């Protein structure tokens, strides 16, 4: 972890207007998060649907307006850049989207798709056909795939094309939104291995957005867990997996059924539903579902830091008896 971080996010907020003509207000999709990503590192953003992880990723990539805070990429503040400034940044920061096939333009061939970055940023005397061959080889696809259309690809193949597009311009950072979504288990590994291999070979930094904790365990160096647009816990992946300190992280980890029928399931069950962003709970926003919640949690905001909790868990902590409301 030497040198300055490639990406530095500070107190970033993203708000959306809601309501009709009379009742206009705003909700916070991302409610103030900070983190750094260093060169050659993989950072994972983990959260369930509605946690704001995708919104955050789009904000970093400039696809979403940042309402407060700052984003610094490679020493340059990018949340204030205009269109042309951002275009220069996008040569060095690329993004992969959730839907493997749907993120590929349906009427373009694979060859056109993988060389699209060059068409956008100037070819600089490159032979596009050679580039297409080079990129397809790099992601392990035969060169004759260049003439295929997206609907003729399997999910895994389409995902590889997406990776090829993302690395075309030799970026320093890739943001991957659910890179394994919609893929079978046997194919998930292929994609993750490919990303890992490329990250090592090309010295990339990566931000992976996912709801799948098992994926995080194997690919990320550090991770952050998001709940209602905030980080509830940040840390080294191994440390978080070994001993989660925020109750929500602990619940998420225990909610992951493992393919072993004899493994004891000491599960932390979360009562109630995720609160609506329109009416954020007071105090600690997790208190409505937290088995450990005490009276202070309903009034005071938890301390900021790596673990946003009034009472961080000790290793191996169990929920307090069975007074959990059902």
């Amino acid at each position, binding site marked *: 972890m030497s040198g300055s971080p490639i990406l530095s996010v500070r107190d970033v907020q993203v708000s959306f207007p809601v309501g009709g003509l009379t009742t206009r207000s705003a909700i916070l999709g991302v409610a103030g998060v900070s983190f750094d990503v260093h060169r050659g590192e993989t950072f994972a953003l983990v959260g369930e649907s509605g946690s704001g992880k995708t919104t955050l990723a789009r904000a970093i990539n400039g696809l979403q307006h940042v309402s407060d805070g700052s984003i610094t990429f490679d020493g340059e503040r990018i949340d204030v850049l205009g269109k042309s400034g951002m275009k220069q940044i996008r040569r060095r920061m690329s993004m992969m989207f959730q839907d493997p096939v749907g993120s590929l333009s349906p009427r373009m061939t694979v060859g056109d798709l993988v060389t699209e970055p060059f068409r956008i940023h100037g070819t600089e005397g490159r032979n596009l056909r050679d580039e297409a061959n080079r990129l397809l080889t790099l992601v392990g696809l035969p060169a004759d795939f260049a003439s295929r259309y997206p609907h003729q690809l399997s999910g895994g193949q389409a995902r590889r094309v997406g990776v090829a597009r993302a690395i075309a311009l030799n970026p320093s950072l890739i943001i991957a939104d659910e890179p394994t979504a919609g893929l079978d288990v*046997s194919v998930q590994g292929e994609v993750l291995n490919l990303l890992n291999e490329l990250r090592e070979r090309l010295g990339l930094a990566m931000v992976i957005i996912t709801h799948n904790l098992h994926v995080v365990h194997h690919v990320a160096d550090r991770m952050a867990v998001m709940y209602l647009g905030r980080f509830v816990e940040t840390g080294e992946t191994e440390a978080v997996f070994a001993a989660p300190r925020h109750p929500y992280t602990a619940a998420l980890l225990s909610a992951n059924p493992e393919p072993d029928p004899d493994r004891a399931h000491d599960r932390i069950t979360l009562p109630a539903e995720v609160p609506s962003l329109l009416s954020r709970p007071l105090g600690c926003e997790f208190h409505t579902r937290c088995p450990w919640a005490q009276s202070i949690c309903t009034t005071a905001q938890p301390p900021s830091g790596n673990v946003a909790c009034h009472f961080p868990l000790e290793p191996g902590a169990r929920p307090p008896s069975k007074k959990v409301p059902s």
Partner: protein
Amino acid sequence: MSTLSISGLNVYFSTEDGPLHALKDVGFDVPERRIVGIVGESGCGKSTLINAILGLLADNGDIRSGEIVFEGMRDLTKLSARGMQDLRGLRISTVFQDPMGALNPVLSVGRQMTNIQYRSGQSHSEKVARAIEMLKLVRIPDAENALARYPHQFSGGMKQRIAIAMALMMEPALLIADEPTTALDATLEVTTIELLKDLQEKIGCSVLFISHHLGVIAELCDDVVVMYAGEVVERGTVRDVFQRPSHPYTRRLLECDPARQTQRTRVLPTIPGEIPDLRARPAGCVFAARCLDRHDGCDQHQPERSVSGGHAVRCNLVGSRQTQGEQA
């Protein structure tokens, strides 16, 4: 007696490029009061199997041969549309994957729940009481008032619980659950599974649970059926199959699940290759092309061999040669 007993089931679809052999010699039992999981990746024929059982195959689908015997007496493949309809909802119920689309958007939840009791012969108020009872059972808050609301006023998790309530309302002998938790978040997924298990014990029905999620199957089910390319490649109790997988595909599939790797690794196992084109099935073993242990004999047909008790594997290697997995 088994609640459901399927044997030698072959299903074809007619397509523009010729007949597609979607299910080949599928056979397994769903014993009484047990939860049987079906696991497999996309294209393995899980959905076709459910539709075949329910008599809801698409127009171009056709059951060429085989039996689906329900409660030891009725062969569902020979049942008339009317006879099938009489069973559905009453003796066989289903929960589908998509909680958003599973309920009719223009009818209130109460209306939908009373409508499906049309065969109960009870008065309207009794039907309403039954509906409220079921909603309470699946932990819908404020069940009395929930009846007047419409599906779009519930969250995804709640809709799926309502769907489960509707499926179990008539206390069926068999519940078919088609990936009911796939669209839900992890924390919701486990609560839904636990709910399903509780209800199954209360009602005492059998469950056929379809999922691609190995962890969910391991946790919920008693028995498991592993499918690949429209064939049952292995079946047995969850403990046997997950702890002593005998088919190379099952073994590799289990290895691929990142949850199985407790040690952190940077290189995850994969299964290179694709499933074969079901319009031109290979003559021999359907997994041969991707199998690391294959030998020349794999290109001929493979018999079904029982390893022990109810643990059956469709593979040439089992019995003839010890495989790596069993040595370990």
